[in-house]
Each structure stands twice: as structure tokens, then as C-alpha cells.
């Protein structure tokens, strides 16, 4: 499918063996701006970088220390995107999370990548024709934090509250995309991150592979906030 929308795809590569799978999805797009952040810890990062340029010579490839997991990596890419003054209609955020904690990790990842499958692209672009849609994600990944009587999820409400105030976000509902893989209207993120430096936000995130099963984390709080940047504008998250 050949589309005329301009798209920038942010990709975080953490593992050594996932680029090949991701690259296949990228071929579904017509001339997107590809920005890749390979974890500095990845011992094969230079080899992966060469492979990326082999197929996508205009890609922008960076590396960054493992801070804030894929969220921190995407914030670093957002900073590059703004500094390079790229202008696009939509941003797509992807990463290569294997999620070993999910017993069906493979099926789970395929669900996440549904948003870059060939048949999904026209559907998603069509969704964006509706002015009140700001973000599109795989339907299974759209979570409402009031859905579950979960201690950690409830703790997040208290934890995130000061962050919402600091970033002047008027949270309309508690829906967010678990896994931080989605399409978003570029203009929404451009405005927000021009006001609040992505690199400054990145400094607040935890180092290493943090999990939030015991207590809320800044990194996972931003998983929610990235979505609430959109919903606080009165726009909706649509599922495919």
C-alpha cells in the first residue's frame, strides 16, 4: 500500500537478534523517516547499525545507555527528531520487547506489531481521518487502569498525580497503551516536547531493566503519560 502521509518511525533495539523481524515491517511503509536507537549495552550494536543502513540508507541511528528502557530510548529519539527539525504527520513508536514474563511472549509481540502490518496501515490512516483520534494502537494493548482492582495500578494514580501537574496535563481518562507501541499525530508530541525537553525527562527515569510489579516507577509512569499527552487534548485512543 502506498500512502502519502509522512511518517517517522522510532525504534528501540535492545536485543541482538530482533532487527531482522522489525525490518520486515518497515518495508510496509513508503519512504518513512526511520530513527533507531540501539542500546549501548548491545554488543552487536555496530553490526546492527550496518544492517540498518544496508536496507535503509537514510535512517538515523543512535545509541544510548539503558536508562528508562524503551521509553528512555524513544525520548532520546524524540530529541533527535526535534533537533533535526523533521516534520511529519504521524509518529510510530516501536521496540523489540521480548517480554519473557508473558508465557505467550511471541504471540503478545505479534499483537503489538499489528500496527505496522501491511493490512493495518490503511485502516489506521483511515482512523486518523477522524479529527478526534490522536493515537492508534493494537486493541489488546489498550488498557484502562480502572479495569482492575490491582494494588500497583491504584498506586500509580497517586504516583502520577504530581507529574500530571508538572507537565500541565489535564487527564481526561485513564486509558493508556501498555507496551508503548502506537501511532500518534506528530504535532501533539512536537508541541509537548518542544516545551518539555525529552532529555530532561529522560534524566528522571530509572537505569537498567526496571520492573514495576512491586512499586510504581517513573519509566512506567511515562508509559501512561505519553498516552495522556494525547487524551488530555480531548483526543481519543483508537484500537485496531
Amino acid at each position, binding site marked *: 500500500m502506498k500512502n502519502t502521509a509522512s511518517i517517522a518511525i522510532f525504534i528501540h533495539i535492545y536485543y541482538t537478534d530482533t532487527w531482522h523481524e522489525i525490518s520486515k515491517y518497515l518495508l510496509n511503509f513508503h519512504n518513512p523517516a526511520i530513527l533507531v536507537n540501539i542500546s549501548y*549495552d548491545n*554488543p552487536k550494536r555496530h553490526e546492527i547499525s550496518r544492517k540498518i543502513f544496508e536496507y535503509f540508507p537514510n535512517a538515523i541511528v*543512535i545509541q*544510548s*545507555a539503558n536508562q528508562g528502557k524503551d521509553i528512555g530510548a524513544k525520548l532520546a529519539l524524540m530529541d533527535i527528531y526535534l533537533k533535526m527539525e523533521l516534520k511529519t504527520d504521524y509518529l510510530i513508536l516501536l521496540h523489540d520487547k521480548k517480554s*519473557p*514474563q508473558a508465557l505467550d511472549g511471541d504471540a503478545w509481540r505479534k499483537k503489538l506489531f499489528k500496527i505496522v502490518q501491511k493490512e493495518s496501515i490503511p485502516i489506521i490512516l483511515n482512523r486518523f481521518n477522524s479529527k478526534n483520534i490522536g493515537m492508534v494502537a493494537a486493541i489488546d494493548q489498550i488498557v484502562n487502569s480502572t479495569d482492575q482492582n490491582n494494588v500497583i495500578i491504584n498506586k500509580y494514580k497517586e504516583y502520577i498525580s504530581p507529574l500530571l501537574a508538572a507537565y500541565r496535563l489535564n487527564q481526561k481518562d485513564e486509558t493508556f497503551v501498555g507496551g508503548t507501541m502506537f501511532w500518534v499525530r506528530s504535532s501533539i508530541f512536537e508541541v509537548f516536547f518542544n516545551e518539555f525537553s525529552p*532529555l530532561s525527562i529522560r534524566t528522571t527515569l530509572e537505569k*537498567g531493566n526496571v*520492573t514495576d510489579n512491586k512499586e510504581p516507577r517513573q519509566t512506567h509512569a511515562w508509559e501512561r503519560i505519553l498516552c495522556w499527552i494525547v487524551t488530555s487534548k480531548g483526543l481519543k485512543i483508537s484500537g485496531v
Partner: protein
Amino acid sequence: MLDSDLKRPQDIRSMIINVFISSSNISLSTPVADGNTINAVRLEMEDHNVLNKYLSKDASDKFILFMDSKVLLDNFTSFCHLFFSMNYYFINDKPLLFIYGSTDESCLKNLNDQIKLQGYGGFCFFELKKTFDGLICVDIYEHIVAQKKIESTKDLSEFLRPRIHKDILVICSEGSHASNLDSVKNVMDNTLQSTPFFEYYDQFEKTRRENEDTLNELKWIRAQLSNYETHLKLIKDSYNHDLEWYRKEIEAIKSWYENRYGSLPSWMLKVNKAFNLLKK
């Protein structure tokens, strides 16, 4: 011992890293030395040319920032993205940074804190005069402590000889690097040729690099292992949580059934037995 048949291996050039001090107005036509080349890019303000150059496919050259420490500190987020370039030069996992201007302890500490906040282990600083001129040799494996202003080929030879197996930074000032580099290459050739047991030094260097790569792989595997251990624990916790829920449910059904009918049917005893086996 001098072996007249001794061939200089191709990768031995990597022992010398040539650093050009250049202005921000750099281009891909920057002279490239015969060996690894690093451009030290002197910046006084944010420059998109630098970003574009070092993020592109063709950016094969490594680079280092050369800045006024105070300017960098005051505008850290404006320059920080350059340390994300795949081509930025790191020493022991720390970005190498050439600085001039204020080099007091608090300024350097603050700069270190800034880069640590981005997840790196700190900077590897090297102080250089803004108007630096000439040639300086630096031994990076002595944490940049060993350095020498090179006034003559004899100086260069003396510096190189005990460090012939190490990575050396040869810092050349702008404008004179071409002649300097020729001179460095000549001295390097002569020093190598006259160094006894040269092949062992070469082997040492290769082994050192392989060792470095292996250690990196090991670090990565350990990180992955720790990741999987955490996730395994999560799965176990979740399993125990679910198991506990079923245990309580079965106990409740058992009590209810016993109260109502006086005894348990055989199928329920089987379920109970199977569940108890599962717990073990």
C-alpha cells in the same frame, strides 16, 4: 631482535588515533589519515551540520567534542544528543571530551553528573588549550595521565616506544595535521621496525581486543540472565498467587459441601488430591 621479513599487520595502524581539531564547519572531505581518524569538533554553539554529519550513513569517522566546559554545562541538553551518536568516541564506556576554559573540580563534577543522568558512567576528560597548536601524544590506557607535547620526532619515538602495543591518541592541531601525520606515520614505522618482539606486541594487542569484546559479551549475557531471572520470579509469583486463589476456592467448596451433605464425593477428593500434588 630485528626481523627483516616482519610485515606490519593491517590493523596495527589502529594503535594510533589521529585527532584533528577542526571548526564546526566540517565536511566529509576532511582529510582522513591512513588508519583510524577522529575529528575533534570544536563547537561554541549548537550546530546542525555536526549532528547531520555524524548521524548519517557515511559517517565512518569517529568524533569527539572539543568545547568550553562552562558552555557545555550551561547548555547540556542542547549538546547531549551528540553523545548518542554511534560515532562518538568512548574510552572505557565513557565519552571522551576535550575541554578548555573552566576546568575546576565543581564544573567537571557537574558535567559528569549531567552525563550520568543520561545513563553513562561519566566523562573521560582531557584538557586542551583552545588555541592548541602542534602535536600531543596521549596514552589512553593510563587514563590520559601520560601525555607529552611533541617537539621533535625523537620525542614522538620516545613516547611511542614503551607504548607500542597500546592505543595512543595523537592530537594534531588544525592546519598542520597533514605534515604532522606524515611525520607520525614515519616515526611509527621506524619505531615498529626497531621494536624487539614486535609480533608479540601485535599478538598482545589482538588478544587484548578480543578479551575486551568477550568481556562485553559476558556483561551483556549477565544482564540478559538477570532480566530472565527477574521475569522468572514474576511468573512464579503470579503462579503462586493464582494457586493460592484456587486453594482457597477449593477449601470453601469443600467446607460448603461437607456442611450440606456430610461427606465429600469421590470426584472432589480426586480434585483435592491432584491440587495437593500440584502444590508440591
